[in-house]
């Protein structure tokens, strides 16, 4: 008898608490329709409660967000002139004093709770949403997959080498997007290639590793502000770690197509021999581009006795092979530690920071 009472009492209590919370959720989390005005355009109405980033996405205004709205990349800056509330501690690391004074906020951290007035960089209105179909896919290394996407609607994409796209990942929750660099050259406008490393538990990479040939997906883009110096006298230095090779492949193949005699160097660091990718492709390019040099290095060579090439971290290779001075533009893409170490090396090589572009992931 006691047990029946005990179960009854606990379930009644649990039930009534849940009902209370549901009612509270209904009244407290409901912000009603909110009006958003962007750059003096016609205002639109969204349902309150979601993040500004997602609200704009629904209106087909695509703000760059390499981290997918997690507040770690700081790319989704917009000026919230009215209704944004106080700047949150999660935004402070990404905003300078001047930006805070100009009401700049991270769109992924601002929640839509009332009418908002925004100012958005006009370039963002050029970013489009694309439908594409997977036409080929292969494993480059045990955990990295290369995926070829053919565009369906719109049929062409215009982008600069080293730009990235954001793939929509199906999820039950709010809209989820993940950013991937385009690894194919911009000359091929009807299709793009991605290089995706599987991160255990990662939403985007798990999805892109599971998509099959002929499956459709949606992405937005192109994003990214790195601009390649078109002057052929400027030497191009690419330093990549792991799947940071993707934008470099796009850059180098672009150079091969437009000015094959341009001086260009690739430094690519991976851990083990299994992680090496695109080596034959770059070797072939090197045989056709007289001024292209490539340096591959393994950071954990003891597991790969058959490796004959360089060993050590990639910034050590940069320190060894790169001579100081000269007109150069440097692109870095890889894990934060690699970027940090390489930046120090580049400082010693007297390359000014405004000629260095980098992307951490």
């Amino acid at each position, binding site marked *: *008898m*006691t047990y029946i*009472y*005990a179960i009854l*009492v*606990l379930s009644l*209590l*649990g039930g009534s*608490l*849940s009902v*209370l*919370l549901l009612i*509270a*959720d209904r009244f*407290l*989390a409901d912000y009603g329709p909110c009006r958003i005005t962007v750059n003096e355009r016609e205002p639109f109405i969204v349902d309150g409660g979601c993040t500004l980033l997602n609200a704009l996405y629904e209106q087909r205004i695509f703000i760059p967000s390499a981290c997918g709205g997690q507040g770690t990349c700081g790319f989704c800056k917009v000026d919230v002139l009215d209704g944004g*509330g*106080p700047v*949150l*501690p*999660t935004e402070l690391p990404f905003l300078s004093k001047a930006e805070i004074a100009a009401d700049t906020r991270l769109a992924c951290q601002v*929640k839509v709770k009332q009418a908002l007035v925004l100012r958005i960089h006009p370039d963002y209105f050029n970013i489009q949403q694309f439908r594409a179909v997977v036409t080929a896919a292969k494993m480059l290394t045990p955990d990295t997959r290369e995926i070829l996407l053919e565009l369906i609607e719109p049929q062409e994409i215009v982008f600069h080498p080293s730009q990235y796209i954001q793939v929509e990942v199906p999820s039950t929750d709010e809209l989820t997007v993940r950013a991937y660099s385009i690894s194919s050259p911009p000359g091929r406008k009807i299709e793009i290639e991605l290089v995706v490393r599987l991160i255990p538990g990662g939403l985007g990479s798990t999805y892109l590793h599971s998509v099959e040939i002929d499956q459709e997906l949606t992405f937005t883009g192109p994003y990214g502000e790195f601009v390649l110096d078109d002057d052929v006298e400027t030497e191009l230095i690419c330093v990549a770690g792991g799947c940071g090779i993707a934008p470099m492949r796009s850059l180098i193949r672009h150079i091969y197509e437009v000015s094959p005699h341009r001086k260009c160097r690739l430094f690519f660091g991976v851990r083990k021999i299994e992680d090496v990718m695109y080596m034959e492709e770059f070797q072939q390019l090197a045989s056709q581009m007289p001024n292209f040099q490539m340096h591959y290095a393994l950071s954990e060579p003891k597991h790969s006795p058959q490796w004959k090439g360089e060993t050590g971290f990639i910034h050590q290779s940069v320190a060894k092979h790169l001579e100081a001075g000269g007109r150069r533009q440097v692109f870095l893409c890889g894990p934060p530690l690699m970027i940090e170490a390489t930046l120090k090396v580049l400082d010693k090589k007297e390359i000014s920071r405004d000629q260095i572009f980098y992307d951490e992931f």
Partner: protein
Amino acid sequence: MPDFSITGVAVIFLAAILTNNILLSKFLGMCSFIAISRNLRTAFGMGISVTFVTFCTAVLNYGIYYGVLVRDAPLCAVDLTYLTFLVLIMVIAGFVQLVEMVIERFSPLLYYNLGIFLPLITVNCAILGVNLLMIDPDRHFGLVQTAAYALGSGLGWLLSICLMAGLRRRLEHADIPRPLQGLGIILIITGLMAMAFMGFAGVADL
């Protein structure tokens, strides 16, 4: 027997704040006390949330304990006191969710400053401590005394965390020996504060 006079209730209220301060006399709720006391404003916000949750859950749990759980309770004659911990924690957890929603709605800045510690109020032992101490059979608390005790305990916790936040701001400019920097000096100061609060002994006692 419980003392229902206004003086009796006032004594319980004062004792809960000063002499029997839940944090400084029983060292309950230390985790968030140390983590959130860096900044006076967030400390105050946390203190208010803890006070609110303590007060509301104590009153609610008082009703549930004496209405349902004890032997010969009006709603259920069977002795269910062995469920006390489970029921108290359930009510506290539910209530914290509610407070979380309220804070998110009305003060997003506080919501982000409290961060992970807001849901952690659920396992703040000061709150469970107050809820368990009020039903201590030796105390014979009635509803009014429970309310006074819970409110006093919450305010006592608020007082100590705000004092600590103020002290920590001054500590930033103090020359502290390296081995004591950080947690070490905080615990020593908490001990000193506890001793200082002993000075209130005799003002009011439970």
